[in-house]
């Protein structure tokens, strides 16, 4: 269990309206005593993190606490950059989830909608989702004009020029192109998505059924079709990208060759894309995902519980070190969407997007796409989420005063 909860005297005094409140605060928020893992700045040690005006102002040992408006003791917990989930679903079909609702409890502060809208309904998505979300939301625009709400097999609605033009019109919001769920045969859908990526100079994220009758094969896709920087998602599923030779259980040579040429592989866990036998063998042969992502939707949130802390915990179970899982859920996803270092680090001056995680010990069950469980002894849990300096989730109420604390006036709420 986690450490004792403590709200410092300074906070209580400030709330009580004593002279301490009159003193000008240097920090809005100070997280003290946590173990900071910020791979971008090579920090993996106990540090305090100070926030002001929505930005990280200092990460250092023993920052004086005297003049912070709110001090939260996070001793025994890990403090990492807000998680970056490059495969989420927030628009366009019945399985979509509202970004804040599912991201913040998971410690995720940046999400990328993977193909919800296309160029025909991007503005509707902006109105319904983007303007209402506090989470940072980027978009892989669908190569199909109507996105996931349309017909994803409809080659006629895959217009590379119109898709690229929409990306160029919203360069701050759209980070690339998604092509997925194409059930027809041939390469047209892949070619058109990559053409849109080429015209807009953005990466393409792909899934695509690989079956003999489709005429597509993983080797051609990852070695000839995809460009360096393009992303293949649903990595530990064996229907969209064949990692392993089913007979020998060896990682296919073309997968190593693809990684060497710069093709990226994204976990995209979801309800159907993480199988223990695939993940186990790939990790045993040192073939990890570049980016850990959830493909979280209304189904997978119940079945595989593929949120970021759970997906990360599965990678820990498979032997990936903690520092590496943090790297692959902050730095590499931010780089993949060309938003590093604005996102994915606790660097001074950056937006204060922070996750505070607890590593629980015990016996935990982790589920794969076919409903099978694997027991592990550690599970990462998000306990506190900060977005642009604001506390947006606090699982155990560690950042707030007791209701009956002396001096508390019932108007704690900001």
């Amino acid at each position, binding site marked *: *269990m*986690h450490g*004792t*909860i403590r709200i410092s005297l300074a906070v209580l005094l400030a709330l009580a309206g004593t002279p301490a409140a009159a003193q000008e605060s240097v920090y809005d928020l100070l997280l003290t005593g946590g173990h900071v893992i910020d791979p971008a700045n090579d920090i993996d040690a106990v540090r305090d993190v100070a926030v002001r005006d929505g930005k990280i102002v200092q990460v250092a040992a023993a920052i004086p606490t005297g003049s912070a408006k709110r001090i939260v003791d996070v001793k025994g917990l890990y403090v990492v950059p807000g998680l970056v989930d490059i495969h989420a679903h*927030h*628009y*366009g079909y*019945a399985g*979509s*989830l*509202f970004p*804040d*609702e599912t991201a*913040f*409890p998971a410690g995720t502060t940046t999400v990328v909608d993977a193909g919800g809208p296309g160029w025909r309904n991007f503005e509707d998505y902006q*109105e*319904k*989702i983007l303007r209402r979300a506090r989470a940072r939301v980027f978009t892989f625009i669908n190569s199909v004009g109507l996105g996931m*709400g349309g017909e994803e097999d409809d080659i006629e609605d895959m217009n590379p020029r119109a898709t690229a033009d929409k990306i160029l019109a919203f360069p701050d919001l759209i980070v690339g192109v998604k092509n997925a769920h194409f059930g027809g045969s041939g390469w047209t859908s892949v070619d058109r998505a990559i053409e849109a990526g080429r015209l807009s100079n953005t990466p393409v994220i792909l899934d695509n059924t690989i079956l003999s009758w489709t005429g597509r094969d993983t080797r051609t896709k990852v070695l000839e079709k995809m460009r360096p920087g393009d992303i293949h998602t649903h990595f530990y599923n064996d229907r969209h990208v064949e990692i*392993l030779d*089913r007979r020998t*259980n060896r990682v296919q040579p073309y997968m190593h060759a693809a990684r060497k040429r710069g093709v990226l592989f994204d976990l995209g866990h979801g309800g159907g894309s993480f*199988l*223990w*036998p*695939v993940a186990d*063998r790939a990790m045993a042969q040192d073939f990890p995902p570049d980016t850990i992502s959830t493909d979280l939707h*209304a189904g997978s*949130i*119940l079945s595989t*519980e593929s949120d970021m802390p759970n997906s990360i915990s599965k990678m820990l179970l498979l032997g990936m070190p903690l520092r590496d899982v943090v790297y692959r859920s902050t730095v590499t996803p931010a780089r993949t969407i060309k938003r590093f270092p604005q996102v994915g680090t606790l660097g001074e001056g950056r937006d204060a997007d922070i996750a505070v995680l607890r590593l629980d010990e015990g016996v*935990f*069950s*982790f*589920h*794969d796409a*076919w*409903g*099978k*469980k*694997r*027991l592990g002894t550690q599970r990462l849990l998000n306990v506190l989420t900060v977005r642009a300096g604001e*506390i*947006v*989730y*606090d*699982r*155990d*109420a*560690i950042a*707030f*005063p*007791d*209701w*009956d604390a002396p001096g508390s006036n*019932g*108007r*704690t*709420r*900001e």
Partner: protein
Amino acid sequence: MTANRSVPVRLALALAGACALLAGSGRPLAQSEPIYDYLFRNGHVIDPAAGRNGRMDIAVAGDRIVRIGTNLPADQAKRTVDVSAYCVTPGLIDLHAYVNAQGVLRQGDARTAWRNVNPDHNALRHGVTTVVDGGSTGWRNFESFRTLVVDHSRVRVLAFLNIVGSGMLEGQEQADPADLGVEEAVQMAGRHRQTIVGIRSPHLRGAGREGIERSLRAASSMDGVALVEYQPDAGLDYRELVLERLRPGDLVTETFGPATPVFDGNGGVNETLRRARERGVLFDLGHGSQSFRFRLAVPAVRAGFLPDTISTAMDKTSLLLPRGDLMTTLSKFLNMGVSIEDLVERVTVRPARALKRPELGTLREGGVADLAVIEIQQGRFGFLDTSHERLRGDRNMRAVLTMRDGQIVWDTEGISRTDWSQAGPYSNYR
């Protein structure tokens, strides 16, 4: 657990059963024939409606509970789930929530849905198998909610119809008296009797007395219950509302919200609330994002005054900082000293009766297989109210498994699942 039988063995057993039937012997099937799909063994069953509170087994076949008893034969179950570490309850009922999210996420009018949440994961993860929308839509837009949400959810979705014709629209703060249509609401309720359980009073300012009166008239006409929010500026004081206007069986919500006069001047529970309860008026918690304060709840619970129904009134805001989901809301009361049995009563039998759906909220042989398996964790926990003040606690309730209509829809500890090492080689992983 019983291993899957091979096809030939199954076929042989089926044939034997068929022969027995053909012979008309009436003899039971072979002892080892699995007749239950699931057997939940040795859980602490809490089912206040049926007076159950003790260790029992529950057998499920298809979408029905078929037996409740002790020492049910495990060899008759395809899958036995050991729930000896947990409480087993009827599927919980969240009597007041805002679950019309699909207007934003998929299609339809985003203004009707801007603060709503998806019902399935926000209910089923917390043991809730019946969720009641608290009036996100009125007669003008209910049918869109029905089509987009009610018909597509795995959780059972019921609804209070808002007396405001357009329901809860983004940006609208003042009621338009012309939009409070009694006849229209009654007609809509009549068309959707399976779903609409009653009428929600106006959530908007300016509807006044008339808004309450029309809600009650509509509720009477449709033979439903009214879910009423007290508004201090409605020209109707709390006393008159709960002692003179509401009918026995009507619900007044936001019990521990800032507008409710919970206490009298001397720190005791207001006599008005006690008298309203004697009259049969029901108090609904309705936690929400504004309406749950420990400053009111803790002293009231100490004085023995609990809401009749514990509901979330959940929306996009309440699920984040105050963590107003049903399990966390129940945990808040558990840490105020309320017993687990008492809590289960207020999320099963009491809301079922309040909704006039007594078949819900209880475990019954032959009844639909909706149930929740709940863990009570020990440790150090903290909980927030809607003023963002904390209650410390040493226990936390968590749903580890939820069954809806005989299907396991949530199983976070994998207690009903097969271990991957038993699932065959990768070339034939099943």
